Structure formats: C-alpha cells, structure tokens
C-alpha cells in the first residue's frame, strides 16, 4: 500500500467519516430542477453533487446513427473542471467515455426503446463535485431525470457501490476509502426485479467477499430507490391537488 499509516476503520468499527460498515452517506435528490430540459434531477450524495438532464425522445441526428426499429440512448457523463481538488482537464477522457457507455447500456434496459424508432433519448450528467462513487450517483440521478421526463420505462435504476477496506466489507466507499481500500464494486440494479444493469469491480475479492459485497450493495439500492421515489412524489404531488379528470376536451 502507498501509505502504510492510513487506517480506514477504527478499533470501534467506525470509519473515518463516522459511518458504520453498512451505512450510506446522506443522499438528497430533487427532481425537475431545469426548466428547458424535458426532465432533470439534482442529487447530492455525501460530498458528490451531480446534475442530470434528459431530452427526448426526439428525432435523432446525425441521421445515419438512427436505428429504424428502436430509440438510441445516448448518455453523457462529464466531470466539471472544478469537480476535483486538482483541476480536471475538461473534455471526454478514457474514464468518462467508459462511464457514458455503461450508463447508456444500463438505462437502455429499462426504457421502452422499441416505442420510439429512429429517435434518441439524450441523458446528460454533469458532475459538479466529485468524491468517490460518482458513477453510481450519476446513474441514480439519470434514472430520476428519465422518470421526470415522462419517458415510458419498465422501472427505475438505483445504484450504489460496496467494497473492501482494511480487510472488511463496507458499503458506499468514500474518497479515502476508494483510494486506499482493497476493492470497490459499483452496482446498478432494477430494484423490483433485482436485475443488475451495471456491475464493475476494481481490486480483488474472494467469492465469499464478493457475495457479501453484492448483498450489501443490493440492500442499499432498495434504500436509494425509496429516496428516488420520494423525490418524484414531492415534485408532482402538488400538481395533483385538486386534480380533475379533464380529458377528451375538444377545443375551438
């Protein structure tokens, strides 16, 4: 290890930021924060701050990239230059291109893409402040933004990471834990069906450890799913007060 002195878990089992092994950082989500986007969400997850915007489904350009039988999901993960302590060189790099790709593929699983031939659903996620676990934060926010955009989909995706630090399995690694820990496993899950749409691993785990990590992360996803639901309900509950069933109204 780079720094032998760093102890990530104290003798009492409490982590550096005061959390227990199975505790998430505090998460707050707000849906519908951008007026000009079809759907949007702002999420804070510990020190992470991400903003997600969804446009579409809309006619896809360039036209040669259209798929005649389904919609193309184009997610873009981007880190702001000021999102990390040392300035991040702006623009797509190896890492953000990778995250954009896995996010697109994860979101494609839930969106009814076959209802929108030749069109695209564009998801933009800007990471304003980063402190480990941004891909999970980005995917969680993107999922809320998609629901806010009224896009037909089979479910929502919740995402969370778990890993191993100081030989112990813990949930939702923080910055230091991510840098000096032994393993980090981000997971994206369709909560109701338990279907996994994103899974990566950095570091090594034994099979037993892996099973523990998965259990921990999947339980956390269920918790996050409730936060996502609350955010959407909060956004739309006021618009349902005195909701009257006015439909089939002819005009002029």
């Amino acid at each position: 290890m780079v720094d032998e002195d760093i102890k990530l878990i104290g003798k009492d089992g409490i982590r550096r930021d005061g959390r227990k092994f199975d505790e998430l950082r505090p998460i707050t989500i707000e849906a519908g924060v951008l007026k000009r986007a079809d759907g949007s969400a702002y999420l804070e997850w510990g020190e992470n701050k991400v903003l997600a915007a969804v446009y579409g489904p809309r006619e896809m350009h360039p036209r040669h990239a259209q798929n005649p039988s389904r919609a193309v999901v184009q997610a873009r993960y981007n880190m702001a230059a000021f999102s990390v302590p040392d300035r991040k060189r702006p623009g797509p790099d190896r890492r953000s291109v990778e995250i954009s790709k896995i996010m697109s593929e994860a979101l494609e699983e839930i969106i009814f893409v076959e209802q929108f031939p030749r069109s695209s659903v564009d998801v933009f996620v800007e990471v304003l402040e980063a402190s480990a676990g941004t891909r999970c934060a980005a995917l969680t926010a993107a999922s809320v933004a998609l629901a806010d955009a009224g896009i037909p989909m089979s479910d929502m995706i919740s995402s969370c990471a778990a890993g191993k630090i100081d030989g112990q399995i813990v949930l939702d690694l923080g910055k230091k834990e991510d840098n000096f820990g032994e393993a980090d496993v981000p997971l994206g899950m369709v909560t109701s069906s338990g279907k996994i749409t994103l899974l990566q691993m950095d570091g090594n785990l034994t099979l037993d450890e892996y099973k523990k990590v998965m259990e921990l992360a999947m339980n956390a996803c269920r918790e996050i799913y409730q936060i996502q639901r609350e955010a959407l309900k909060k956004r739309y509950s006021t618009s349902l007060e005195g909701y009257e069933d006015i439909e089939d109204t002819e005009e002029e």
Partner: protein
Amino acid sequence: MNEKKETKRELLLPGDLIVDEGVKPGRGTFKRGGKIYAATLGVKTVRSGYVNIAAQSGRYDPKRGDRVIGTVTDVNSSIWMVDLNAPFPAVLHVNDVPWRVEFGDTKRYIDVGDAILVKISNVDELKKIQISMDEEGLRKLNNGQVIEIAPSQVPRVIGRKGSMISMLKNYTDSRIFVGQNGRIWIDGPLEGQYIAVKAIQMIEEKAQVVGLTDAVEQFLKEETGKVLENKREDK
C-alpha cells in the same frame, strides 16, 4: 363528473403495479407476467375497460385524430415536412391540402417557418406521422402568435367543457386555438394577445391551484377591466 372533483389522486411511478381487476392495459402501461404496470409517471384513469396512465410530463405523444399546430421545417416538390414537437417528424402531402397544388409549386402555398393547423390522419407502427389540412377549420395560420406549453397541461388550458378557453377568448377578444401538442395560437388585438399569453402562463404555472378558473377570471378582470356576466355552467 362534477361531483367527484377535489379527490387527491395517487401518483404512479414507472414500474408501479396496477391492482385493478378485469381491466386491459391502455396508454402508459405495460403488461408483464399477467400483471399490469405503469410505464410513465402519471395518474391512473380507467375508461371503457382500459386502464391508462395520464402522463404528468413528457413530450407530445401523437394520436390519430388530434388537432395540432405544426411548423414547417422542409419543403420539396410534393410534400412538406412538419415539426409537431413530437419524437417524430410529420409529413403533409399535397393531396392533403385544400388547394390544388401543381407539382413543384408547394412553396407558393406553405413555406418553411409557417405555422399550420392540421389534423393527424395516421400514425403507423413505424411511427410515421401523416397529417392533413383538408378539413373544416384546418388552415395555415397567417397572423397572430404561437406559444408553447407542456402537452400535459393542455386539458388545463381548455378547461372542463372548454370553460377556461372560452373565458380567455371572451375577455381578451382574441381568437385562440389550443393544439393537443401543447402549441397555442393566439390572434387578436395586441393588448388582448398580451393578456392571453400572460393568463396561459399563469395557468401552466398554477395548474395545481384549486379554483384555478376563478383565479384566472379574477386576473383577466383586473387586466382587461372588463366585467362579463358569469355564463359558466358549473358553479
């Protein structure tokens, strides 16, 4: 329908199970493993055996028979390409306009940028939209202005049995047409147009307020200084 207002409806999110018995899946729903789920964020309505989710957000979903306002984006010798604010472009063919257009003479009638009032005559399984202008009331919109609101708020602007829209027209002396795609055409004296736009923006912002019609009427009275006797049927 008047007595069952003020009931707070439950909001369904994508993937939520719909528990109703003996209904068929309609708009905004999907069926999986014999059960019906919500596909979009919205409110449940049951109509003639079908359960639908009335979306609370999102783009315009083109339906056959809808009257909409489109803007022309491209012209060639026998068709106009029209943007309806939908996920797909629409095609208006020379045979579907009220004039006899010579081949290649399309630009003389409707040009790029023009706003037109059309009806959706067909949406096929490939989501190709055909529109028509060859029907009573459909035309090119020459004067006035077009504003946009969220398609989910269109029923609000029209109001029950058209109460809201007729009130707007009466107070502002404007001609107003609300397209199902959320585009609204307003024509009339400039002052009236201005007030109508402000009133519609108010409706969109405060759609949730109970007694919205009265609030808008109050606003219109103040702005126009007009007093019209209450001819509305409800209340």
